[in-house]
């Protein structure tokens, strides 16, 4: 009887496994995101869209700039800064002839400037591997251990970083893993706009990571402060001191954006 019971239990585990089937996404670098996704934006030049003259186009640009809740839209010709954009999609809703968000989730950049999308530009963000630091290329090709620091994040980017490691996205297949101690880490992933109250712990954590080390900013809040930019409760001086190696935009960052972003650093040989 006892043996029978045990076999029965094993069977129910096997049954569960069978019912789950294969859950991992085979190709996380090429899969399409379901439904609506607001990834890399494309701005149509005013001349092509506007019926009226230059004055009307300028007025429209002004409206777009005023509409954007985080000042991500600016300039003439128009630009969208994905490091400031919260991907709310309101500009696309009101000015569909000017702004369109594509489903391209490969939007991470090695430079801050690489996050700025200019009018008429509709090409994937292609990072220049030459920009990756020599020591990163040398040491971190096969595996990457990262320590995450939530510095006043709203727990949405933290969520998605966790999701990147779940059975669906399975970031571990590339040797990318989040570790418990900064001593075991090759770099920091920072989320959140960095509050005054977290500035000290963040610095201590960074100092504890052995050299050579990298810094990755995940999410609009971390990259620019996002909707919190200008709050008196923030202290972003940490970012003035060190070079950032990777910017992953999003509000929150999508797991596919995270994985493809980090892969830039690992596949730069």
């Amino acid at each position, binding site marked *: 009887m006892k043996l029978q019971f045990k076999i029965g*239990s094993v069977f*129910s*585990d096997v*049954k*569960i*496994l069978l*019912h*789950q089937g294969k859950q991992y996404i085979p190709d996380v670098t090429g899969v399409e*995101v*379901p*439904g*609506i*996704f607001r990834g890399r934006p494309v701005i149509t030049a005013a001349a092509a869209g506007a019926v009226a003259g230059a004055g009307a186009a300028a007025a429209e640009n002004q409206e777009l700039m005023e509409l954007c*809740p*985080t000042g991500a839209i600016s300039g003439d010709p128009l630009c969208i800064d994905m490091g400031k954009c919260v*991907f*709310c*999609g*309101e500009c696309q*809703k009101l000015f569909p002839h000017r702004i369109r*968000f594509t489903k391209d989730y490969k939007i991470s950049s090695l430079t801050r400037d690489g996050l700025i999308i200019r009018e008429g530009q509709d090409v994937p963000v292609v990072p220049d591997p030459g920009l990756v630091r020599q020591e990163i290329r040398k040491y971190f090709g096969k595996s990457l251990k990262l320590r995450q*620091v*939530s*510095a*006043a*994040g*709203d*727990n*949405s*980017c*933290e*969520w*998605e*970083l*966790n*999701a990147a490691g779940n*059975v*669906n996205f399975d970031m571990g297949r590339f040797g990318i893993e*989040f570790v*418990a*101690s900064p001593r075991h880490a090759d770099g920091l992933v920072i989320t*959140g*706009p960095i*509050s*005054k*109250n*977290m500035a*000290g*712990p963040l610095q201590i*954590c960074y100092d504890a990571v052995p050299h050579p080390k990298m810094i990755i900013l995940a999410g609009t*809040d971390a990259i620019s402060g*996002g*909707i*919190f930019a200008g*709050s*008196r*409760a*923030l202290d972003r001086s940490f970012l003035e001191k060190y070079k950032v190696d990777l910017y992953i935009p999003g*509000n*929150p960052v999508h797991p596919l954006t995270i994985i493809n972003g980090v892969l830039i650093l690992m596949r730069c040989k």
Partner: protein
Amino acid sequence: MNAIPIKNNQTLKIQDIPVFPYEEFLELNTGMASDVYLHCVNYFGHLLDDHLRLYCCMADDTNGNILISSAVINPGSGLPIPSFTARHFAFHVFERELHENFGIQYTDHPWLKPLRYSHNRADLHSEIGNYPFYRIESEELHEVGVGPIHAGIIEPGHFRFICNGEQILHLEIQLGFQHRGIEQLFPEKKTLLQRNILAENIAGDTVIGHTVAFADLWESLCDFKAGDDILYARTIASELERIAIHTGDLSAICTDVAYQLGSAVFGRLRTPVINTFQVWCGNRLAKSLIRAGRNPYPVTPDIADALNRLFDAYEPDLNEMYQRMKTLPSVLARLERTGTVTQEQAERIGAVGPAARTSGLIRDIRWTHPYLRYGHIPHQPIVKHHGDVYSRTQIRKQEISQSIRYIRNLIGEIPGTGITNSELKAPMANAFVLSLTEGWRGEICHCAITDSAGDLILYKIKDPSLHNWTALALAVRNNDISDFPICNKSFNLSYCGHDL
């Protein structure tokens, strides 16, 4: 004179809120709090030129009113005043905030410690690095400090344990690391869209809970009657968020007792739920779904279809995994009788949401102060009585099933198109408004005050975690320190919702 009763999401003129002498104000509100179904949903101060006006909001769960009263005090006088907390402990967090932000001194507050080290606190010498931890002098006891940075991808907070061997005698939780000054940003950001996005970013795991509170509040302030399609979409979104996070929590609970199969299966079951949000509005956490005064993503037959298909596939897998987990002695041994909160404790600390309901204390805004479509559902809260980790696991599973039932019923009757919603008017001047919602963690309360021009001058947010962190501190007493992670996960409280 009595406190003025309002309904959930009702705006009233500031001048209609009665002002009491402080002693009477104290008697009135602490007197009410002696009835367990009359609890405080918000108590805060508004600093005007030379005086501080205190507003106390008591929710009467029996007849669905919220009783508002106020008092005026002079914080500059430096004279200590008697505390609410000495009469009823549930007020402790609110008075700690008043002390921290305005320097109010109390004669008899038993635990007057910093709450979140807000950037505009009265005493800037009080810093997050020198928090006055409770200590016990002893040769036998030892202290364990954990955080603010933890061993996973989690928000920051510091936990200080006093242990006798492996057993926890006392836990003190120090928060504030996530403070972004969000309440101050509300009046500073001038456009409605900016404020709407601020509300989405209060707590990224409770986007719907907080944003619905903001949207309902703003619409009330602008005398906007939301059409049925808006209420309908928001109700479905609220329940879908509950399903998503509860599923993730079941996975996290399995992770913390090292039950790999449960962790992986519940973890992957969350994915199609949040992906449905993405199909619906373009964001896995439902950011951009809720907008005050409009319905940017109405529920279409396609969305209803996607939800039906989601549940058809999700429910059998969830049930199968949950039934399996329930039969495993090695899992149950870690969950049962671990981290117990008694009903008496839950009442004393003013616990809310599932944390209260698992200790036999029925607090559920959907039931007592219905908003959106909850008046018509009709909703019956799920109640448990053991107050342990297992109860908090069971309630998640049962609430998931309940929410699926509600959504399945709702999508049977999509409100027709052609509903015209009125335009948002300007916010009412000199007004006070309060909004309550039941997020998956429990009761969320937003309050706002406008000036004579109708400009927003005060915005107050209360996340359920504000109360429930104390429940965690009590739950772990006399438990092994190795059970702390599972106790913590069983509450899954918000750091950013607390720190604001």
